[in-house]
């Protein structure tokens, strides 16, 4: 908190924006606890002086004082809670914003390190942990210690000898809480993993319902589930039993401490070292101390959870974007047809976890050419096209677009040259129009319609009464797979990109639609360079050049006819999909 003020992520540094509130929250809560601390001693005075001397005046005045202290305490508490809410929620908001912006700034290479669920969990649940934890922390950080120390001081003032009882009892209470928390922790972890197992079996059985029934395995699966389920509740019962120990143990220690207070208190009162009222106050302070210990222990769990969340968020925040804009970017003239020229010069590329995804690729592509990239899954074929828009940077060699190294463009300009259709057809909530305007925010209706027509999507879009304003649900779930795919193709074509990359993106289309699509791209976008990554030889039989990739190696480059002639792998792929054409 003090010296760790580096660039590293830490929730404390976010409190700086809410200095005022994060200072006031514990401050007010501290005052509240001070108000609370005086009540028992006043009550003791009422009993000792008021009742003993039959002084009604004294009783009423001190009673009024208790009332005032109560109300004051409440008002300070309300202010404290308000400040804590503002500060903690504000920190949550800022962290959430920073994570989201950070994730947006990362390149593909960094995103590969985290799964989507990881990123999502961290930006939703972990931030919430921190935000809620911070709220509790701000509310309790002064109150609990203030009450604890205040109660101790008060009791010391009343009677030093009796306070010694606290010296014995407090460590015992702390020990009980500590040992139970410690024992609970590993059980909680096993419960979590056992719950995951139960969830997994459920999911397996839902997705595989046909297989389970085809093999008549219902009874077997039920038994399997039962075992996992029983395993789970065994741990849960263990956890429950251990947890049930906490409160009775504390209450028995507290009650025996009270017995001790009475025992020694009786002696002290008898010799005039203590009064009846003070003894009562003592018991009262003792009650406050034991509740404080419980709330401090829960505070510790909260802090632990916050720190764990903090670590997870830090992991994301510490990853730095590796793809940056150059200091002197090349100016882009979007009317220049030459932008469609792509060259690979001795390109080698490795992912952080996969070595040699591309080995020594050299290729020259002229504007308007069709380039096919073919190979199996994991062969590295998508890696080639990923280098053009700088989703990844080459390990060595150069990629040129429009005669310039891709690293010389501003990343935004470079990607504006290119229209990309990713493997997974992802649409975003909004309308068809809002999705179509992703590449070109000011696209006209004519431009959008043209793109829809080329992508073979116009036929179904025009059937919607609200046409371009037709709603797109989150993730595009209101469209079929084929429709989604055609829409993502159209999205990439709006505004005539110089380079089109179709990354295995016609898998949900039938042969005929796929053929029509390729034909219309040729007809209407004949000056665009077209990269088609695919597993079907039929999709690229007209390509100017076909790159055959296997295991990161460029096996061969040539036309369909040439490759059928000489490339064994290409032949294999082709003939497994097509019976030998007898001509």
């Amino acid at each position, binding site marked *: 908190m003090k010296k760790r003020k580096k660039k590293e992520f830490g929730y404390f540094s976010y409190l700086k924006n809410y200095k005022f509130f994060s200072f006031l929250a514990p401050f007010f809560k501290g005052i509240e606890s001070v108000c609370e601390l005086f009540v028992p001693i006043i009550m003791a005075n009422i009993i000792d002086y008021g009742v003993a001397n039959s002084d009604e005046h004294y009783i009423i005045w001190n009673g009024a004082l208790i009332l005032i202290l109560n109300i004051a305490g409440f008002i300070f508490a309300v202010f404290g809670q308000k400040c804590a809410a503002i500060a903690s929620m504000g920190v949550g908001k800022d962290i959430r914003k920073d994570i989201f912006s950070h994730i947006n700034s990362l390149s593909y290479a960094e995103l590969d390190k985290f799964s989507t669920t990881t990123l999502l969990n961290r930006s939703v649940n972990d931030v919430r942990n921190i935000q809620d934890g911070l709220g509790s922390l701000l509310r309790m950080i002064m109150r609990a210690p203030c009450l604890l120390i205040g109660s101790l001081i008060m009791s010391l003032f009343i009677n030093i000898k009796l306070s010694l009882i606290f010296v014995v009892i407090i460590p015992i209470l702390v020990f009980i809480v500590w040992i139970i928390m410690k024992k609970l922790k590993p059980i909680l972890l096993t419960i979590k993993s056992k719950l995951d197992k139960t969830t997994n079996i*459920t999911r397996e059985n839902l997705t595989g319902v046909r297989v389970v029934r085809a093999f008549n395995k219902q009874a077997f699966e039920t038994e399997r589930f039962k075992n996992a389920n029983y395993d789970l509740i065994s741990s849960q019962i263990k956890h429950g039993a251990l947890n049930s120990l906490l409160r009775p143990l504390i209450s028995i220690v507290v009650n025996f401490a009270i017995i001790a207070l009475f025992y020694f208190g009786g002696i002290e009162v008898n010799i005039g070292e203590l009064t009846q009222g003070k003894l009562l106050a003592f018991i009262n302070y003792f009650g406050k101390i034991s509740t404080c210990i419980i709330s401090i222990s829960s505070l510790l769990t909260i802090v632990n959870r916050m720190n764990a969340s903090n670590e997870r968020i830090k992991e994301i925040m510490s990853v730095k974007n590796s793809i940056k804009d150059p200091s002197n970017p090349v100016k882009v003239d979007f009317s220049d047809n030459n932008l469609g020229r792509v060259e690979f010069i001795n390109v080698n590329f490795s992912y952080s976890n996969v070595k040699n995804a591309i080995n020594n690729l050299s290729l020259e592509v002229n504007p308007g050419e069709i380039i096919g990239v073919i190979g199996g899954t994991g062969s590295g074929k998508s890696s080639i096209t990923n280098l053009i828009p700088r989703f990844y940077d080459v390990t060595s060699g150069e990629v040129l677009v429009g005669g310039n190294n891709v690293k010389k463009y501003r990343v935004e300009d470079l990607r504006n040259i290119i229209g990309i259709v990713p493997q997974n057809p992802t649409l975003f909530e909004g309308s068809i129009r809002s999705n179509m305007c992703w590449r070109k925010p000011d696209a006209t209706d004519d431009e959008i319609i043209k793109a829809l027509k080329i992508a073979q999507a116009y036929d179904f879009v025009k059937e919607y009464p609200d046409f371009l304003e037709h709603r797109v649900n989150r993730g595009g779930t209101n469209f079929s797979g084929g429709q989604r795919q055609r829409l993502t193709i159209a999205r990439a074509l709006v505004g005539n990109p110089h380079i089109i990359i179709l990354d295995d993106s016609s898998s949900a289309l039938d042969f005929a639609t796929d053929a029509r699509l390729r034909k219309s791209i040729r007809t209407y976008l004949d000056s665009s360079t077209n990269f088609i990554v695919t597993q079907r030889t039929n999709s690229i039989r007209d390509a100017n050049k076909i790159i055959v990739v296997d295991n990161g190696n460029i096996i061969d480059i040539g036309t369909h006819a040439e490759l059928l002639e000489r490339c064994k792998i290409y032949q294999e792929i082709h003939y497994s999909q097509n019976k030998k054409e007898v001509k």
Partner: protein
Amino acid sequence: MNNYQRLSSNEMRDSFTKKANQKYNRKKGSLKTLKKVFFYAREYRFYLYLAVVMDIINTICAIYLPIYTGFSINTIIGVGNVNFSELYKNLLVIAGLAVGNAVTAFISEVSLATYNYKGTFKIRDLLFEKFQNLPISYIDTTSHGDLISRMINDIDIMTDGFLASLAVVLSGIISIAGTLVAMFMLNFKLAIIILILTPVSLLFSYIIIKRSKKYVKRQIDIQGEISGYLEEYIGGSRVVKAFNHEDESIENFGHLNNNYNKIAAKSIFYSSLTNPTTRIINGLVYGTVGLYGCVLALQGEILVGTITTFLSYANSFGEPFADISEQVSSLQQAFAAANRVFNVLEENNEPSDEHLPDLLNCTGEVEIKNVNFSYIPKTTLIQNFNLSVKQGQKVAFVGPTGCGKSTIINLLMRFYDVNSGYITVSDTPIKEVSRNSLRSKYGMVLQDTWLFNSTIRENIAYGNPNAPLDDIIEAAKLAGIHEYIERLPKKYDTEIIEGGSNLSQGEKQLICIARVMLLKPPMLILDEATSNIDTRTEKSVQEAFDKMMKGRTSFVVAHRLSTITSADIILVMNKGQIIEQGTHQELLKKKGFYANLYNSQFESSRS
């Protein structure tokens, strides 16, 4: 797929009306739901009874503790005025009560937890068994995420809510009643004061809780919106980058985030008020009781010790009210969750077929006569479908994606039943034999390969767990996956994790084929994979498929031309209907849909 979607939206409407109906007779419904929960957990009711008995003893101890504390104080009056023998007697009683209190509290909590978790166990088990017996149509049309959430979250919420609130309500009522009796016995006037002040304090907290609830609900809604947005944009972050859309997405998120912040801050503030409010009200009750007690003590009506007894009653009397009111929301959630769980539990099972004989002799002739079928009542999908398949013939289904090829599989395997007409296998109508015996005559390999988390060996032996290793190896060899498995460090004992994420798509498919090969069924249902198989394995899969089909009646959802052209019968489907039927040559001559489809892939795009 489209059919499923339409069906599910229909079902959704149904469930909406159901919900609406439920709202009208909610009171009756709640009671019924509660009864059902206890009914399902009835075999563990001993733990519940034990908890109740322990709770009663616990409350009695808790009521007597302050009384003896008060007595003790009364023995300590002043200098030289301490009745030690009386004090020690009282302290001894307190010690006994403290031990009794702690022990009963522990036993009660443990037995309630046991009751709670055993009940959870039971209901989960029943629900899982239900999943195994529901008609496939139900599982097809219900979101799996939703079903999983019912299995895991809803059952948790339900048992937590019912059983934990039950504990609170139970011990709350017992302690309210007990304290009330004790108070009136000790001092009538002070008891009346506490009795009047408590409802006032409850009203206060009610007002605050109600207010905070409004914001909590809005907070939850907008939280869902934020999560949805993040899911969409983090999931699609690659697309966002490809289209330079970072700034817009950050800006939109900023709006959502700010909105959330405003509402969440309010919601947190109001809910955090509950604590100080309880404290001030307790403080006020404490002060009033203390002062009035002092006045009564002055008048000699009570002793100082009685004041302390009442002070602790003032605390313990209000507490259960607050505790019970806190349970209201979790009870509401529990009712909602229980209804979601019971809705599934009370769905109709697949009609029982226990009385039907097994299909014994099956040579592999399949006859489909005048079959009509549709997923949605009153619409048409498959109409008057006739097909006669001889033993060993290969039937290929061809058509664009989503044309309904899998419908036929559903009917053959009786995952769904025909609306009219009939299907026979070796002259036996399939409706007149048990489903299990029918299904065991088919070997099925689907495109969505399904493996479960266990070893390769157990996955291959899925249909026959007692198969000796030699048979398993034999099946693996026939599927062409044996060499691959042998290369793995743990060979056949290699664990398959997360549905096979450590295997490639092709390898998974080969294991599925081996699984079928082990059983040597007379008939096959195959769904060829379109993509995701690397070229090398694709060849092995193809070979394995061919080997398997030899001599067996096969129904193949075909994507490869080699499969299609060698088929004895090709069924061409479009939009759920069978539009053409014949051999490859016949269909080409017809120059219809099939011919068009076939030729389109050779069409040049550069013409």
